[in-house]
């Protein structure tokens, strides 16, 4: 079984405050735990600080899987306690660019003047460039694929015990669709990665009206996300990467309206900070 916990659900910039208490104000961070205690951390938004504070000191290895290097997905990295723990190996996976490795790209943030500590001075960090052939981390089999979002961005598909969790927090698969008509699967960004997922965590940042002025910014509307989830045939869908301007009341309404409008055949679960999903057989 995979235990998936949302530590940060917000997109673009942290949005803490009394009006975002339920859905949360931290930016993208998701914990995936295996039965054997193997720990994956998806993205290093501001939610990773709290996640890091809960990790037992006797853990030997943590893998942080970055979808891309926009600030809302890496801003918490420097505040992730295990990075400074000499007994923990931290493996960071994320996209290289055409000219720079992941490590070189991260150094732009983890170095002065943006940050006081150099990446190279942290004790036990190993960087891995993605996309790459599928790889295994403990019981997890991980697939990566570049997806539609400005700058190199990947999505992750994590398999364990016959079940799959797919994480596509920043994704605009509907970019350029004419008259809103989806193309065939082979022409749909993220299709292979997400098809048949037991749990899909997917970008749902905008309303239709907001999207009109934000085409090409790399994000989905509720309509796009619900239609994408239907096309790839997921079992459960979590709208994610909430726009910082959307308070709890607005998000409740957006999710409710979308369910009424699109009548999904899959389960829709709210993307609230602290939400836990158990995926796969319970052993």
């Amino acid at each position: 079984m995979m235990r998936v916990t949302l530590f940060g659900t917000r997109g673009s910039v942290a949005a803490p405050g009394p009006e975002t208490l339920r859905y949360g104000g931290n930016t993208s961070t998701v914990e995936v735990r295996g039965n054997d205690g193997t720990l994956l951390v998806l993205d290093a938004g501001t939610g990773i600080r709290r996640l890091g504070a809960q990790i037992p000191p006797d853990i030997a290895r943590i893998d942080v899987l970055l979808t891309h290097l926009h600030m809302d997905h890496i801003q918490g990295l420097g505040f992730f306690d295990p990075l400074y723990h000499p007994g923990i190996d931290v493996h960071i996976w994320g996209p290289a660019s055409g000219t720079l490795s992941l490590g070189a790209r991260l150094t732009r943030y983890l170095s002065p003047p943006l940050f006081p500590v150099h990446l190279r001075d942290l004790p036990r960090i190993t960087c891995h460039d993605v996309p790459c052939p599928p790889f295994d981390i403990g019981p997890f089999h991980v697939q990566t694929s570049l997806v539609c979002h400005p700058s190199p961005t990947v999505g992750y598909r994590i398999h364990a015990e016959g079940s799959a969790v797919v994480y596509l927090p920043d994704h605009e698969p509907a970019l350029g669709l004419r008259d809103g008509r989806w193309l065939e699967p082979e022409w749909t960004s993220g299709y292979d990665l997400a098809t048949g997922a037991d749990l899909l965590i997917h970008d749902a940042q905008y309303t239709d009206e907001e999207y009109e002025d934000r085409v090409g910014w790399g994000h989905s509307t509720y309509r796009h996300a619900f239609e994408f989830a239907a096309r790839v045939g997921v079992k459960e869908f979590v709208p994610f990467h909430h726009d910082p301007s959307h308070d709890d009341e607005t998000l409740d309404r957006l999710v409710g309206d979308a369910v009424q409008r699109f009548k999904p055949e899959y389960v829709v679960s709210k993307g609230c900070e602290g939400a836990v999903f158990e995926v796969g057989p319970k052993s």
Partner: protein
Amino acid sequence: MAHPIQIILTRQLASYLSVPLFLVDPKGNLIFYNEPAEAILGRRFDETGAMPREEWLSAFTRFDDEGKPIPLEDLPLTITLTKKRPAYKRYHTRGLDGVARQMEVTTIPITGLQGDFLGAVVFFWELSE
């Protein structure tokens, strides 16, 4: 199997251009062409779908200013597919509609972030004399 994101985005871009554009996979099979390119090929993409390399290249005859046929190995697309670099040539074509056109043809490789060769785009520019 889904196309790489670079190919998907190229198709999206092509569908918004008025420049005739053909999109091929690493073997030269035609996987998409836009509406302006339909006029050159003489057939609509909705009708043909993807086409094997031999089929779509045989839809054109190619010849130089003196009417001599241009061998396949001298075509910009062949050069791009074999050498994975841009190529250019000016020549005449006759498509399925039987009309002769003088064309400038430019081909550009689509190479991924890690140097993986994903296909090529072929731009046709008709010269009006």
